[in-house]
């Protein structure tokens, strides 16, 4: 089981800011936003991990994104964390190369206002097209009163 730790350290050593293994089957890596594409492509293509999902979180100083990868045969969940500072959280899109990342990037974009540079199809995924732009419901400073009926642009509603 320890081999996953050493594999990651050998392959990604120079990119890793911090590595922790709080449980037997959980590894948390911290990397810089600019290293994310290379780390993710290593994990997905070379290390044969399944991409489970990505979590975005409003951490007041920025948006933290956690990419969850499962290496099933080693029974290990590898979590890659990165912090995108305010006021313009922005990161390279992975969805343009790996389709599994397509939808979750669209979700993070509309819910938390993260810009994914180079994403081919950044339409709304879960929110209505008429939802006012520039409002991000999963940010901590979002209040229900921030969005009123008159802010909706019903011209834009798709159907």
């Amino acid at each position, binding site marked *: 089981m320890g081999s996953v730790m050493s594999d990651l350290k050998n392959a990604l050593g120079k990119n890793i800011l911090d590595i922790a293994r*709080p449980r037997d089957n959980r590894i948390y890596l911290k990397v810089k936003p600019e290293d994310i594409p290379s780390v993710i492509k290593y994990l997905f293509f070379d290390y044969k991990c399944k991409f489970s999902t990505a979590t975005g*979180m409003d951490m007041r100083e920025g948006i933290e994104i*956690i990419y969850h990868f499962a290496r099933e045969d080693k029974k290990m969940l590898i979590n890659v964390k990165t912090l995108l500072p305010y006021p313009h959280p922005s990161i390279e899109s992975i969805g343009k190369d790996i389709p*599994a990342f397509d939808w979750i990037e669209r979700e993070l974009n509309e819910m938390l206002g993260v810009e994914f540079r180079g994403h081919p199809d950044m339409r709304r995924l879960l929110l209505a097209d008429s939802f006012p732009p520039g409002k991000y419901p999963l940010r901590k400073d979002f209040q229900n009163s921030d969005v009123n009926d008159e802010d909706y642009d019903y011209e834009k509603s798709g159907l």
Partner: protein
Amino acid sequence: MKRTIVPLGPYHPLLEEPEHFKLYVEGERVMEVDVEIGYNHRGIEKLSESKTWDQVPYLVERICGICSTSHPFAYCLAVEDLLGCKIPERAELIRVVVAELERIHSHLLWLGLAGHFIGYNTVWMWAWKYRETILEICEKLTGNRNHYAMFKPGGIRRDFNDEQIEYGLNRIEELVKPLTMLTNAILDDPVIHKRLKGIGILSYEDAVLYSALGPTSRASGVPWDTRWDEPLAGFKDLDWKVITQENGDVFAKTVVRLLECFESVSLIKQGLEKMVEGPIDARIKEVPPGEGCGRYEAPRGEVIHYVRSDGSNMPYRHKIRAPTFNNLPTFKVSCVGETIADVALITASIDPCYCCTERVGVVDECGNEKILREDDLIRLSVEKTEQIIKDLGKVPTLYSKEI
């Protein structure tokens, strides 16, 4: 050839949830698919941030009426991962039993719907009839046919008594015979072979590239099963195997689900037989700051919950990802090149928590519009089945168009 857009959705009374598909067709062939979701977005992740750790299981149980065990299961695992706590063995086994009952009833529900889609209403009636046995066991063991409210971080809420365990064992044994009959009947039926084989193929490479989950990926030969891969308490001591198929078509997905029902029956029996005495709750007092991930194999694939605590009585962030989120985009590859008559079946084959269409409007570029209702879609599908029966020259015993 001229490309036409066929909108499918967003409302369809046959299935549970609304979803909108845009099919770009050339003649009868689908060339490109665009999926729009979000019609049922309820903001549960945000809502969860305002619930206490104990209230969240009730909330996540209501994410899905069918996976009402899988979401609380994954959430409880996430909280237990955060705390590093181990739950009592009896609670682990009871969790296995409830979760596997849910898997069978979900697979049988899907089988019935798929049967109805291709005009095999006998399959529909049989599958749902035997599903009733499972729902009755659920009612006896947990107090409800669905939404069991059995899970809590640290254990389970209600214990099984000896009478319930015996009832469960007897009734589940009762299911084996009809389930075997149904499986053999389906796997031997020549028309079902012709109708389901070779359509909606998801290759191994695409399953990996889209990170497809559950029976969708296992039918393409990707052996991912979270119950096996995540050393889940409870499952590790029981004897069962992961079912995989190689072809990736609708038939392979049917086979995976049918055979998984037998593994689930075996897991339930083992769980009930090996039931140990002891406490059912680890009695969690408070949740310290930290983070945890919980993964569980729902009937449709891996469910993942991530929780972050800042030490208060509510989650700071609670991320939920249901399996259909990863499985739906695979239509972009599996529907391409198929006919409209097959699309309803292919979209159903991943067992999405979705709802396709009340009506389908066919709009060509000149603005001519033709409305296809739900019955028309099923009619298209049934017509194809009838054509196969005609070609075969013999009506199979299972086939029945009448409801």
